[in-house]
């Protein structure tokens, strides 16, 4: 507000245009496929936590004896749990693939002055994944 003083000197407020500030909607992540893919990738962590909770229940059943374990195995056959586990399996594999594919950009490796292509850095992780999975299978299925 401009104000006159008794001496006649006036002070002005500098003009400032009204910028438009768009609000980011809570549903921003539904607006684009790339954003949705990002949120799904992050939600894979829920499948990871679900797996850990199931495993803790399994360990608890093992701890309590053969009847408890049989009861646990029976509950795992329920259609609801099978469905949840099927969905979780896809999310968990999605986590693995996105994790291995993104890691190379965080760790660029240079050999003989040139940068090693990302695919080559990701490949050993996949190999390790297969080897480790095979070892677990061998140990459990013996």
């Amino acid at each position, binding site marked *: 507000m401009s104000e006159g003083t008794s001496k006649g000197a006036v002070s002005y407020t500098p003009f400032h*245009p009204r910028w*438009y*500030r768009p609000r*980011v909607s809570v549903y921003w992540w539904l607006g684009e496929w790339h954003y949705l893919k*990002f949120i799904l990738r*992050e939600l894979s962590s829920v499948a990871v936590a679900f797996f850990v909770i199931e495993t803790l229940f399994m360990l608890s059943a093992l701890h309590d004896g053969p009847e408890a374990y049989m009861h646990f195995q029976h509950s795992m056959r329920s259609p609801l749990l099978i469905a949840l586990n099927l969905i979780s399996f896809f999310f968990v594999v999605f986590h693995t693939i996105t994790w291995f594919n993104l890691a190379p*950009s965080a760790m*660029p490796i240079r050999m003989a002055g*040139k940068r090693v292509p990302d695919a080559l850095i990701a490949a050993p992780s996949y190999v390790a994944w297969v080897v480790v999975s095979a070892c677990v299978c061998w140990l459990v299925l013996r």
Partner: protein
Amino acid sequence: MADKITLEIARYSPEQDREPHFDSFEVPVHKEWVVLDALNHIKDNVDGTLTYRWSCRMGICGSCGMMVNGEPKLTCATFLSTYAKNGGKIRVEPLRYFPIVRDLVTELSDFLAKLVKVKPWLMPKNEPPLAQGEFLQTPEQVDRYKQFSMCINCTLCYAACPVTGLDPVFVGPAAIALAQRYNLDSRDQGEAERTAILAHPDGVWGCTFVGECTRVCPKHVDPAGAIQQYKIAAVLDWLKSLVTSRGQST
């Protein structure tokens, strides 16, 4: 190919509008025309009040960034024919997540302030005398930071990054990539001075690796890569500081 295409352009005049609205313009399609040519055609022949930034029209000044059909793009590098093929319309809006000054012009002072904060200039430990001659760098030393030096400050990455929209204090992809460009430069010894702003919740730790910034960057700078690399460097520095401080206390 159709010989005309419709552009829906966001308009906002602070003196008259409370919020942006869209105006439609029909523009002739020439094989070699880009969206910027269409905007210039409209301003020259149809509506002289259309307001937008542009300069070099060849993808190096970084002025003409806008949202084209929801994607951040340099309008000097986006061909009309890409959209005319499907008989589609082109929706042109100002870059997302920035305040709008007028029509397609965004307010960049916040971005520029963040850029200054990361100190994107060489800070050698001891400034050698001029008589000593130039700094020498091998091709390998240049290669370490070259990719991050390609940034043209077009802020397409800020328009792509949801974190900048959700958290306006986030330093952002371009600023961090440029800080990393100087951290990796063998002539610079100022990494410690940049730590305070980078290794901070509003710095690299605000990034959740959405990766959109890298996808939209017209100069293939890979700011997401720069940020993740700095995260690892920051963690290693922190671990190192634990070890060295323990050594000092005993």
